[in-house]
């Protein structure tokens, strides 16, 4: 069984985000880019399934500009077998990405697609669920554990109030939450090896997908500032402030 793992290249989680003065977006020139952390977890899970003999091949796919291949190489260095870059400079919204992924999943006849539950830039939390809907496959989002047996996936999901376990028919879509696993670091030899692994290039036209944006971004703005706070000297002083000044307890 082939596992397809879509990944996204995002501004690194430790970069301080600054809104552009003209409100068209956030500063992205010369900032560190990384594989979205949830996508790394998805890659790790797929590699572990292959190592456990549950999958034959792990294919990573991403859509974006030419620089996106760096992120695909990073996933190959972790242990994915090959990569597909859907190259485009167009802004991609989640529905468009899901349509691109549907085309790739069908072309590759993937038996399982594992994605990150959300990307830390747009915070949409949509692509996996949309892909499941478009393919007509079952979905288990926010997964914290996954086992494959007898053509079914058993998935424990993080939900409001605790955990839920579902059983899905394969093929299916899984989206990874934080606690599914801890992704490995790529070793130097594996980073070198990754440079030789196959990376195919496609584009939206070749996949027959219209990626025209559906919504227009009118402006991007700073969050409202909080007024500066004060330090208090003791627990008693804190309680006094909360009762007297803030009148909150």
């Amino acid at each position, binding site marked *: 069984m082939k596992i397809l793992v879509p990944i996204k290249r995002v501004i690194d989680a430790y970069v301080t985000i600054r809104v552009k003065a003209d409100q068209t977006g956030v500063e992205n020139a010369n900032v560190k880019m990384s594989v979205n952390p949830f996508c790394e977890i998805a890659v790790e899970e797929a590699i572990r399934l292959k190592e456990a003999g549950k999958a034959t091949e792990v294919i990573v796919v991403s859509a974006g500009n030419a620089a996106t291949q760096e992120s695909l190489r990073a996933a190959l260095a972790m242990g994915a077998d090959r990569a597909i870059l859907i190259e485009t400079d167009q802004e991609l919204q989640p529905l468009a990405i899901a349509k691109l992924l549907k085309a790739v999943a069908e072309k590759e006849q993937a038996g399982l697609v594992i994605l990150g539950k959300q990307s830390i830039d747009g*915070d949409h939390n949509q692509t996996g669920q949309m892909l499941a809907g478009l393919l007509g496959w079952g979905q288990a989002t926010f997964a914290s554990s996954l086992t494959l047996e007898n053509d079914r996936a058993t998935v424990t999901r993080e939900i409001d109030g605790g955990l839920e*376990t579902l*059983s899905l028919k394969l093929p299916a879509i899984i989206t990874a939450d934080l606690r599914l696993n801890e992704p490995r670091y790529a070793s130097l030899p594996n980073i070198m090896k990754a440079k030789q692994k196959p990376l195919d290039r496609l584009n939206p036209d070749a996949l027959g997908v219209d990626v025209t944006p559906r919504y227009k971004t009118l402006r991007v703005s700073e969050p409202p500032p909080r007024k500066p706070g004060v330090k208090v000297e003791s627990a008693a002083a804190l309680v006094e*402030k909360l009762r007297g000044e803030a009148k*909150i307890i």
Partner: protein
Amino acid sequence: MRILVIAEHDNKSLKSCSLPVVTAASELGGEIDMLIAGHNAADAAAQAAKISGVKRILHCDAPLYERGLAENLAQLVASLSADYSHILAPASFFGKNVTPRIAALLDRQQISDITAIHDAKSFTRPIYAGNAFETVEISETPVILTVRPTAFDATPEQAESAAITALPPAEDTDLSAFVSRALTKSDRPDLANAAIVISGGRGLGSGENFKDLLEPLADSLGAAIGASRAAVDAGYVPNDYQVGQTGKIVAPNLYIAVGISGAVQHLAGMKDSKIIVAINKDEDAPIFQIADYGLVGDLFQLLPELRAALDNSA
């Protein structure tokens, strides 16, 4: 214009996050229908009928909707969509799971986690863990939205109940099956809508310290208990305690962060709280930058002192 609100419920009662979604729907202007899809969910439907502003309850009752599985629920909502200009759900774990699937079935681009409505087609939403907000405009209908519950007030009850219409179930997709659910039991207020939240981080050091130091304080204050990702990952508390970009978003009147340094991912989940208190031994911890009141020191000494101070002046 007609608007469909997808209610989150557990068959017996509505989840409180459903109420702010009705407020958001009212801001759009139009007749509001609310969908209760469940099994033996008459009580939840009756409760929904009392929400102010709801015109009609669509009650679809069948075993296949008992657990709110995304595949069957999305199928049902998609079959109803032709009548509506907008379809809304809470941006809770439930809403985040099912709504994008509905959007995909309808070939629509969802707008997630909206915090403000400007008109029927333009909305503001947080991006980059709330470090920026984007205002977007979408011209297709139905508009598919998830609503951040803390950004809108809860709707009051109305005296007269809305009409309840029974709906036939859609076909069972048979793609996924419910196995089990393990819910954290607690007598404390619900984290998502408690007036006071006290959260612990890695600084607490262990699950026992959560129990011995944080819980008594939470009980004195009538507070819910939350946690940072670090505390959950360390196994001090269950996953559903996590406050942050990818956990729960809370906005209580008072948020007390204990032993939490204040990573942006945590701040994303709580910085809209009215008053923020930070207790941390590192005076340079980022949490102090957004705290209204900061207390620098050893939490193992300060928490018992805080409890004594609360009890003394009570």
